[in-house]
């Protein structure tokens, strides 16, 4: 039977098929059609890829390749229609020629850009909220480890501040100022439709897992009218990250690689050995001179190399498009033994079914980040204060142990942290057109991160180290299910679209740790065999752990209405319910309303200089639900821990003590922000000059605080509560400008943005909420640096004012309360704030033929930095005791060596800076001129300089710094303490497409 079938196939079906195929070919020839080819370029001569080439009045169409070339079959007299996003549609009539060079002109106004808003996209020109879309082309260049760096300085109202210069370090990002006292002020990040949870699973910034080269666009939603669709997570703004997708009709393989060379941008100017020998005796100290001349900073820093490799495959046919990438970045820190490696893979695909009525999108990103860290602050402290006359190495170059000093080389070698995070972020989203205008969407997303952090002290004889391994395991599993429908209805002059949906997100977070001590000295690293540890008991090795589930259930909707494409209105609404909220406040409701008026569309504006002029205004309520878990529930706990149990008899076992660990607060809820925004979008000179001006005012109330209860006799010393009347107001003005000139062989653009912001705390029931813990540095335990005070901005420095050195050689402080004793709590003044008044940036670019040159600068001003490093280390008394310092220690010639250095305005410094963030020079080879166009469609080489210089008065490593010195979760601002220095880097790279 089978054999018969095979025979049938061979002898009947195949010939029939062949006949059919050849008949088709005959038909083509008979229609007198011929192959027309050509290339499409833009005004500058660059190829236009993915432009649609269609034969007018027929169904024949194709897309241009990356080098702009196309072939299509048409016959004489046909008209080819060329269309592409951002270009004016162009028509060409087929004559007898078979090859055509087509030039497409860029549309003068880039307003046709699409911006991603929550649960959908809108045309930029129709948006009524304050939204900025940033595409890959305008991202910052350089060694980028986390996506926030891509938009530093690129969006007005957004302040990106790295904690330090360490590779992969957490990046603080606030949109339109901080609105809370203790809560995270980080915006909500939404990656391909999945809102990310802010709980971290290890070291570094949680967004390090995203390969920046996979990112297509970042859309920043700033005001409440835009973010209310994200309800209780929208108060700090929303950043929507969209990864790259394949394009139908293309097939591309791209490879890019770069090598970065980094050095510490600026060292502390501590005394050299010779200067030290001179200066110590001057202070009255006795020099402890070991005869060497060591630059301890040189011992711990190095020239670091960063390699980046990225391979992408993308393309697709009519029904299926895909994008796949593999990325690897091996980054060395400028401090020895500090490395950050990221390996990432991505696969995004879109498949259409049923005449495109059903579309399924899948995204999958998989990343491993591996971060090796020495004990950074310990080493930095040693490197800047160690006596420079002590030797670091012996004659054969080995680290030398000299009692009396901690040689950081031993720590570099023996004390390390090994941190690995594996993260998978994937989603499947289905879009189904039910009837015309009505689309049903279903989203399912998972975000799964596992982190392991080994903190290892290798055992050693000299210096004596017992050896210890402590391991932290962290898990974060998030799951998202969303269902929503969108409906569009157009009947001129009305245009209505509506959205309604339901969302459920469940986040499971778990952390565990254990440790073991006392390892035998030998070649085996404790991390590879914890079993070699010889001491394990509950007093030093009690395992720890925690776990919680957060669930968020939401209902949301949006209606937009356009009348005559001139008058726009948007209403957003979200109801958010969370397990974190108290029984009496399970659901929060977050509405917003906004209006837009496209003035330039009005008849009376027909001949004005404006090609676009739109006025926007919006109001909305958003929330911040970053409350710790379980705070709404009482806890009556029982334990044999030392602070709960007590011996009742002569011998154990000890009873488990039972106490109320926590009181229930059934009223606990989110913080609420009300925001108004008025904005003006404009474009003049046919769109060459465009810009945006916004005024905003955001008032946050129901501030979440941990407070001691009024009656001191309470089971728990603190209680979580919303302080009803307290408000934090952020208001400001944002201006963005951009000017473009496009010529045939020459083009340039310049632009920039500036934000002025003011922050104010009001109606706090407390005289001061202290933060900015100075503890750690010897002698400063318990001092606080920041204070949240009525009438003053968040991040204010609340300090005793240093007036100088008195005739007795001791510091003189301002006696504010005039009670005769200076330097008391009551003498503290508000001495400025860590929040900048102005954030600004500017950029420029020039294209001359195949060369392009771009530069990005950014800066802040009006802010202060507390130099806790100098306070703790660079004092005259330290120098007199043979600790190294900078010249700052001897700046006051009359200062006595017994003068104490408590925290004061003496160490408060101007934090303004202007940074040359990055500068790139690139050259695009013309593959056809090189004769390689058959194999290579694009070849580009470039050189980038990153952090080339910083203009600042600040004399620490870098003014962009924010060491976390929070006190019981109350956020600290603007403190520099042994912060990892920033690097200056040169990056050389190559991009190649096939």
């Amino acid at each position, binding site marked *: 039977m089978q054999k018969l079938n095979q025979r049938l196939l061979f002898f009947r079906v195949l010939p029939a098929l062949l006949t059919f195929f050849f008949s088709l070919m005959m038909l083509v020839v008979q229609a007198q059609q011929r192959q027309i080819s050509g290339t499409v370029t833009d005004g500058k001569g660059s190829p236009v890829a993915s432009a649609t080439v269609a034969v007018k009045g027929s169904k024949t169409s194709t897309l241009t390749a990356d080098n702009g070339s196309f072939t299509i079959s048409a016959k004489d007299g046909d008209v080819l229609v060329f269309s592409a996003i951002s270009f004016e549609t162009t028509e060409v009539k087929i004559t007898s020629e078979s090859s055509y060079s087509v030039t497409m002109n860029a549309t003068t106004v880039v307003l046709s850009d699409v911006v991603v808003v929550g649960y959908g996209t809108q045309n930029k020109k129709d948006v009524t909220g304050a939204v900025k879309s940033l595409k890959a082309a305008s991202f910052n260049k350089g060694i980028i480890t986390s996506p926030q760096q891509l938009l530093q300085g690129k969006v007005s109202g957004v302040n990106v501040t790295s904690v330090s210069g360490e590779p992969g370090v957490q990046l603080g990002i606030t949109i339109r100022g901080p609105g809370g006292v203790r809560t995270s002020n980080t915006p909500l990040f939404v990656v391909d439709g999945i809102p990310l949870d802010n709980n971290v699973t290890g070291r570094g910034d949680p967004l390090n897992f995203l390969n920046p080269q996979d990112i297509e666009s970042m859309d920043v939603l700033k005001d409440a009218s835009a973010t209310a669709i994200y309800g209780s997570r929208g108060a700090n703004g929303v950043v929507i990250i969209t990864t790259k997708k394949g394009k139908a009709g293309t097939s591309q393989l791209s490879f890019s690689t770069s090598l970065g060379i980094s050095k510490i941008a600026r060292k502390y100017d501590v005394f050299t050995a010779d200067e030290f020998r001179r200066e110590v005796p001057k202070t009255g100290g006795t020099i402890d001179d070991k005869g060497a001349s060591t630059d301890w900073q040189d011992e711990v820093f190095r020239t670091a190399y960063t390699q980046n490799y990225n391979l992408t495959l993308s393309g697709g046919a009519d029904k299926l498009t895909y994008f796949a990438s593999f990325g690897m970045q091996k980054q060395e820190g400028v401090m020895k033994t500090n490395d950050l490696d990221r390996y990432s893979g991505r696969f995004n695909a879109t498949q259409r079914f049923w005449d495109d009525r059903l579309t399924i999108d899948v995204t999958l990103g998989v990343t491993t980040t591996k971060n090796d860290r020495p004990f950074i602050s310990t080493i930095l402290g040693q490197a800047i204060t160690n006596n420079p006359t002590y030797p670091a190495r012996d004659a054969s170059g080995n680290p030398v142990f000299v009692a009396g000093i901690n040689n950081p080389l031993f720590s570099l070698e023996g004390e390390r942290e090994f941190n690995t995070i594996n993260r998978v972020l994937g989603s499947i989203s289905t879009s189904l057109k*039910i009837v015309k205008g009505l689309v049903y969407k279903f989203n399912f997303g998972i975000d799964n991160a596992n982190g392991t952090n080994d903190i290892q002290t290798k055992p050693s004889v000299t210096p004596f180290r017992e050896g210890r391994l402590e391991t932290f395991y962290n898990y974060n599993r998030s799951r998202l299910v969303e269902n929503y429908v969108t409906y569009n209805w157009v009947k001129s002059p009305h245009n209505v679209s509506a959205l309604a949906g339901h969302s459920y997100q469940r986040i499971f977070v778990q952390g565990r740790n254990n440790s073991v001590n006392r390892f035998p000295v030998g070649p085996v690293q404790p991390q590879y065999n914890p079993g070699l540890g010889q001491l394990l008991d509950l007093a030093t090795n009690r395992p720890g752990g925690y776990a919680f589930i957060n669930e968020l259930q939401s209902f949301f909707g949006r209606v937009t209405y356009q009348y005559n494409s001139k008058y726009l209105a948007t209403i957003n609404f979200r109801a958010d319910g969370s397990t974190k909220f108290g029984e009496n406040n399970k659901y929060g409701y977050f509405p917003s309303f906004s209006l837009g008026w496209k003035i330039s569309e009005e008849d009376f504006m027909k001949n004005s200089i404006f090609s676009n002029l739109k006025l926007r205004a919006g109001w909305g309520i958003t929330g911040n639900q970053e409350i710790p878990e379980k705070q709404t529930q009482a806890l009556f706990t029982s334990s044999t821990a030392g602070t709960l149990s007590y011996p009742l008899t002569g011998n154990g076992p000890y009873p488990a003590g039972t106490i109320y660990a926590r009181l229930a607060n059934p009223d606990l809820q989110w913080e609420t922000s009300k925001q108004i925004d008025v904005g003006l979008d404009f474009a003049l000179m046919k769109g060459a000059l465009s810009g945006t001006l916004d005024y905003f005012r955001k008032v946050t109330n129901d501030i979440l605080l941990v*407070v001691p209860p009024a009656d001191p006799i309470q089971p728990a010393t603190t209680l979580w509560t919303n302080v009803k009347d307290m408000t934090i107001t952020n208001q400001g003005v944002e201006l963005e400008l951009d000017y473009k000139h496009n010529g045939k062989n020459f083009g340039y653009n310049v632009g920039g943005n500036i934000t002025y912001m003011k922050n104010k705390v009001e109606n706090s029931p407390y005289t001061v909420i202290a933060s900015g813990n100075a503890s750690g540095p010897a002698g400063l335990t318990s001092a606080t640096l920041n204070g949240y005070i009525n009438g003053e901005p968040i991040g204010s420095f609340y300090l005793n004012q240093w007036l100088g050195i008195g005739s007795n050689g001791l510091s003189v402080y301002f006696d504010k309360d005039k009670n005769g004793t200076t330097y008391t709590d009551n003498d503290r003044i508000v001495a400025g704030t860590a929040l900048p008044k102005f954030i600004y940036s500017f950029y420029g670019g020039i294209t001359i033929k195949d060369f392009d040159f771009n530069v990005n600068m950014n800066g802040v001003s009006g802010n202060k930095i507390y130099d806790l490093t100098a306070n703790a280390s660079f004092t005259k008394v330290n120098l007199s005791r043979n600790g190294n310092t900078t010249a700052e220690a001897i700046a006051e010639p009359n200062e006595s060596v017994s003068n104490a250095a408590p925290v004061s305005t003496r160490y408060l410094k101007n934090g303004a800076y202007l940074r040359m963030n990055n500068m790139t020079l690139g050259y695009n080879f013309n593959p056809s001129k090189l004769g390689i166009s058959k194999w290579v469609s694009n070849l580009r080489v470039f050189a980038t300089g990153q952090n080339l210089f910083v203009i600042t008065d600040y004399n620490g490593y870098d003014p962009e710094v924010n060491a976390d010195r929070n006190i019981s979760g109350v956020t600290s601002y603007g403190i520099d303490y042994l912060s990892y220095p920033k690097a200056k880097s040169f990056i050389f790279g190559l991009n190649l497409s096939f």
Partner: protein
Amino acid sequence: MIKKIFSLVLIFAGISIIHSCTKLKEQVLDESSVTGLTEQQIAEGNIAPVYALLPTLFQHTNLFSLQEISSDEAILPYRGGTDWGDNGIYMSLHRHETLSSDPNVNNTWNQIVQSISRSVTAINALATNNYVNAKTFLAEARAMRAYYNMLSLDLFGISFKKEDPDATSEILRGDVAINYIKSELLAVEPLLDNTTGPGRMTKAGVWGLLAKLYLNAAVWRDRYAATFTFKTDEMDKVIEYCDKIISSNQFQLASEYFSIFDNNNHNNKELIFAIDQRSDLNGHNRMAYFSLSGDQFPLPSVPAANGTDGPAITPEFYQSWVSAYSPVDPATADPRFFKKNLNIPVDSCILGTDFKIDRGIMRGQQYGLIGGRNIPFTTCGTGKYKIGKLYNVTRGKPTLPVDFTEAIDFTVAGSNYSTGYRVEKYEFSSVTTDGRNRGEHDIIILRLADIFLMRAEAKLRKNNDAAAALIDVNTVRAARTARTAPPALLTMSLDLLFRERGFELYWEHQRRTDMIRFGKYEGTWTEKTNTDKQKRIFPIPLNAINGASNIPGYLVQNPGY
């Protein structure tokens, strides 16, 4: 097609329902409220936390600092410009310039108010408990609440009256507070057991507290008085309760003074009420570790366990010993001053098991194990360790000897690592791994010698009965017979009694209270010239004042802060 579409919608909607139907009831995974306990577990689970914070409360940075560093018995400078600077809080404390934001004041306060709260919780839970010991536990909880209130009254000038956990506590001051504490102690005295000490509250413990309350009533009643008026009937009560303890014959003065502070002191008959520390409950060793040099390593087996160059005694306190026994050295004259444990053999080699550091007040060049911290101890033969002169190696001053000097102050020279005579009263834990943890010794709250001295004081204050007082004082001195007992005193006066309390009870969390009662607190000693009477009590912590700011007039800051 439409059918297909609808079935697809249904499938997705179905998936959604499975995944997302939620009432948002928070599920707690890592902690659980206690249920299903037996009556015994409930009873014991309630009484244990009432005592459990005592070790923390009596830590070096908490009650010890407040009671001792504010006095002439202890001074803590900014050691070597690198240690114990702590933003000046220890210097401020010594100079009587403590601020309401002071963290040690805040921590001490927190331990006390939390312990009162735990007592209130326990009292309410135990009232209905059927466990056989529940009634005793209940009495203990009430007595402990009274004790914590007494501490609060002494330190902050206020006490808290709270019965109902849901009500706001009543704040008491002066006489009202004294009467409240008194009535509570009297109410529970008959209900208490006398066999549960010294780790738990007993009848004798209550008698001791009552004696303390009556003795200090004059101070606590009229805090800022120029001179305190000690009432005769109150002095009679002091004598009465001290008599009860002494005549009970339950307690006995120890012949070896330092055995009271040994690691195995729990069964020492001199202890009336003490904090029962166990190493496996991670008691703390701070009392033994605090004052030692960073280069003193008391345990050959643990190179990580050293001291921390904390406080020393002031030269004035030292001179009080010198002048008392001159020309005899106090170490020879009084066994309470010093006990030599470390006798260095000719070859400077000692078995690890024989190595024991000296106790009491340590002066001059210190000897001990060589190395430690970053460097292994130098050994000399099997199980033997080299003993030698100590230097400040861990301080990066390997040529600076650990040579404790009498002079200590806040100048650069006076605050070097080795200035000031040190105190090693409590024995260093034998099982600590870092010097701070796994303490073994009980920390004393009440002991028999204190009772004798209180009775002597009451006799002096009542009718200046110096002869009777002298007998009590000499009874204590004469009991220390293990080595040579201190000579008997020949006369007695309040000044001599104050000095004697210093000799007997130095560094036992008593000095500030004593100095105030004897009118010495506004005196002058090294680095202390402040004579402000308002500094007799500490500020209520700023945190607490802030927390109570929503009830106007409820928690009022003490004057002068």
